[in-house]
């Protein structure tokens, strides 16, 4: 048995070893001139949090649902489905935030901390929005798919998208132009673009920020309706 606590501490190290160490030899700086080590820092935190977010949602919305466990009891409690979704997302965000913090502490021993206070605050803000959008994506997937094999394949695709296609590690400018046009409007990429914009220019992109928040809210409501539908209630 491997205790989960060990994984929480080793995951940031794996992410650093597998992503930062090889890529820093290929990419020296971002297209906007930011040193690669600084550019990739927020990306690693987001990726660690994305990995941390997944098990909770997988367990409650997919594993327990397809095996007809606990979700039944939760669904019978006197709360609306919207409230249930919001509750799960809150807990998932807190867990992801904790994992992100642990990753930051671990990285502080390996690489210098590259963010100013304003950049740190904005990172946490967009981090929460990113986690809420990703959490909603996982919830929709967990409710829509009933086969573990299909679920795993979709999960791999999502993680590939998070790591390489959301702008966290590889900038959109490195993709072919038509592909870039699609990727920049993916819900997961929007808060990351808004975060990078504020980090590079120091200015808040209100349009991207508003779109990100709107996606969070509408997706949560849609998931509430979908959960109700799925439980035949």
């Amino acid at each position, binding site marked *: 048995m491997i205790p989960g606590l060990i994984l929480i501490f080793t995951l940031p190290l794996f992410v650093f070893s597998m992503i930062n160490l090889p890529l820093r030899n290929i990419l020296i700086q971002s297209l906007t001139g930011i040193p690669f080590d600084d550019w990739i820092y927020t990306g690693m935190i987001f990726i660690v949090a994305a990995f941390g977010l997944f098990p909770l949602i997988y367990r409650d919305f997919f594993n*327990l649902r397809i095996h*007809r*466990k*606990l979700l039944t*009891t*939760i*669904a*019978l*409690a*006197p709360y609306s489905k919207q409230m249930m979704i919001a509750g799960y997302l809150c807990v998932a965000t807190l867990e992801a935030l904790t994992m992100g913090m642990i990753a930051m502490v671990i990285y502080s021993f390996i690489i210098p901390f590259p963010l100013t206070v304003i950049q740190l605050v904005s990172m946490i803000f967009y981090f929460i929005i990113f986690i809420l959008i990703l959490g909603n994506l996982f919830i929709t997937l967990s409710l829509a798919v009933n086969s573990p094999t299909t679920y795993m394949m979709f999960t791999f695709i999502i993680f590939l998208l998070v790591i390489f296609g959301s702008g966290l590690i590889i900038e959109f400018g490195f993709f072919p132009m038509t592909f870039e046009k699609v990727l920049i409007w993916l819900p997961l990429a929007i808060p990351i673009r808004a975060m990078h914009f504020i980090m590079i220019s120091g200015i808040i992109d209100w349009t991207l920020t508003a779109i990100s928040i709107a996606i969070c809210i509408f997706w949560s409501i849609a998931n509430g309706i979908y959960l109700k539908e799925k439980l035949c209630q």
Partner: protein
Amino acid sequence: MEASITLKKVGKLIGDKTILAGLSFGVERGTLVAIVGANDTGKSTLLRILSGFENPDYGQVYLHGLDMEKRRQQTRQLVGYAPHDNDLDPWLTLEQNIRFSACLYGVPEKDTDHRISKFSQALEIIPFLGELASRVSHGIQKKAMLVRSLIHDPEVLIMDEPTGFMDAASIRLTWQLLKKLKGKKSIIYVSNSLIEVEQAHDRILVFQDGRIIMDGSLDKLLESTLDYHQFQIEFEDLTDELYNSMCKVPTVVSPNRMDNIFHFYGRNRSVFFDIVRQAADSLMIDLNVKKLGLRDLMDSQFAGGGLD
């Protein structure tokens, strides 16, 4: 007495198949109601509708006068539901599962402690409370599910096979508890254990094809058996010729055989003597006669149609 549950023309369809067909009945507060019937007749679907887990396709369900569809949150607080299959979180202990449910219903910690202690003691599961739900037997899981369904002190308790997977002692303890709760709570349960149903009910609803075909106490239901008796005679050698001749006796109803045992129904005990006359030359080695019970009533040959 005041109504606890009222169903008005409640129906449920799955595709083209009718699962529940316009059910209308009421359950009085504090009564113990058993629902019996053949498999796949809609009993569990009815329980899921009463618990709020599923919605009917048409009709209304009222709990303590509140429409379950319009007053969802209030009615859910009134219901405790223990499904047939184990739905405990396998990675939590039994106590954690119960406490989690208590949190969902906003039960104060003090009440939670008191109820866990009271019901766990009554069902003798205290030594297992710290065990993971996946590591205990199905019978213990079932008892923990019962405690969990009672943790928020519901007015209506709905159970699908309440003693499923349980050993004899556990069944006794479970019924002792449920009989204590009867009167304070309305209890509705589905069971295929007809012996238990005969012993524990104020009222029995017999289901067939999504409809209630019989409704009342055991005595009332057995009135329809018209004093029929069940006979079982074991011969030393039951030949085909003898079997066929006994089948032709006019007072013998629904005859069948298993090896050398001749089984049939008759309106009164005197039918036995008709058979004795017919089989005077054959050696009988055993005889069993009993009045019909719920099991016989539920046999597909009789339910709905009766013996005549």
